[in-house]
């Protein structure tokens, strides 16, 4: 039961990461002022941190901090994961515990 609960939470966080990463890849240029979507059809859907450059990683971490209200960037130096599952674990470790069944 608890394992399923943890797994649900990880799925939620991972999906949030995927959504934010896709948004950044598609619209990161807007954030910094020069929309250039001429090659939009060629942008691959990010599935791994290796698909994101240094700026995109920063935008992703800031977005996750705002979503979950927890500090992540300060500890990122010690983060050695390479995929979204690893990042989801990293986020969940910093979330306050929540009751089972809580959304």
């Amino acid at each position, binding site marked *: 039961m608890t394992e399923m609960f943890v797994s649900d939470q990880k799925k939620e966080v991972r999906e949030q990461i995927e959504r934010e990463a896709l948004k950044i890849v598609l619209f*990161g240029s807007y954030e*910094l002022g020069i929309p250039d979507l001429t090659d939009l059809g060629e942008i691959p859907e990010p599935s791994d941190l290796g698909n994101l450059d240094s700026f995109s*990683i920063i935008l992703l971490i800031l977005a996750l*901090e705002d979503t979950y209200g927890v500090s992540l960037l300060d500890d990122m130096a010690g983060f050695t994961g390479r995929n979204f599952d690893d990042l989801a674990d990293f986020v969940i470790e910093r979330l306050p515990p929540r009751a089972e069944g809580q959304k």
Partner: protein
Amino acid sequence: MLFPHTKTRRTLLRHANPPEGVTAHDLLLKAELNDLPSAEVFGALYSKEVSAQFLVERRDTDRVVGYVSFHHLDLSGQHMRASFLTDPAVAGNGLGAEVTLMTINYAFAMWNVRKIYFWTTETDFDVFRTAFNAAHKEATLPEHLYDRGVLRDVHIYAVYREQWEEHGAELLNKLTQGPGERRKAASTVSAAPTDSTEASEGEKS
């Protein structure tokens, strides 16, 4: 008005002041940075006519992970050059981008320049990739720089003040604040009276 940030939550720019006879390149060799450019490239692209230079440190370990310099200041033309490098082995997870943002911001905050040039031998320079399109490639100097027996192309990029002030500075500000501070700052801004509110209140009185 830009604030000359020299630290974010995890990165610090510390003034580099090498003693007589010691170069910044020597300091970086001593700090055992990986992928350090050769002395020739460093001398030509990073440390000529320097106005200010910094060592980049990780705040959690105090370890030196990079270098930033500001040089070739031309107040008549209102431009200058800036350079930076980070050790990819110990400056991952976006730290290189943080250094880039601090470098650009510091130059615009401290000097009356309208654009900052970056000269690089790298063609896929991280700063100029997809997420940060604020840099304009302005020129390539073919086979310009001698590096360990090879003539390398030099690519010249520029970032303009107007664009930085409008879009880039805000991102750097976010990196200096935790999520709680950002939320508080955002709620203060949204709670502040707008010009139109003030005008209508003035009209009432």
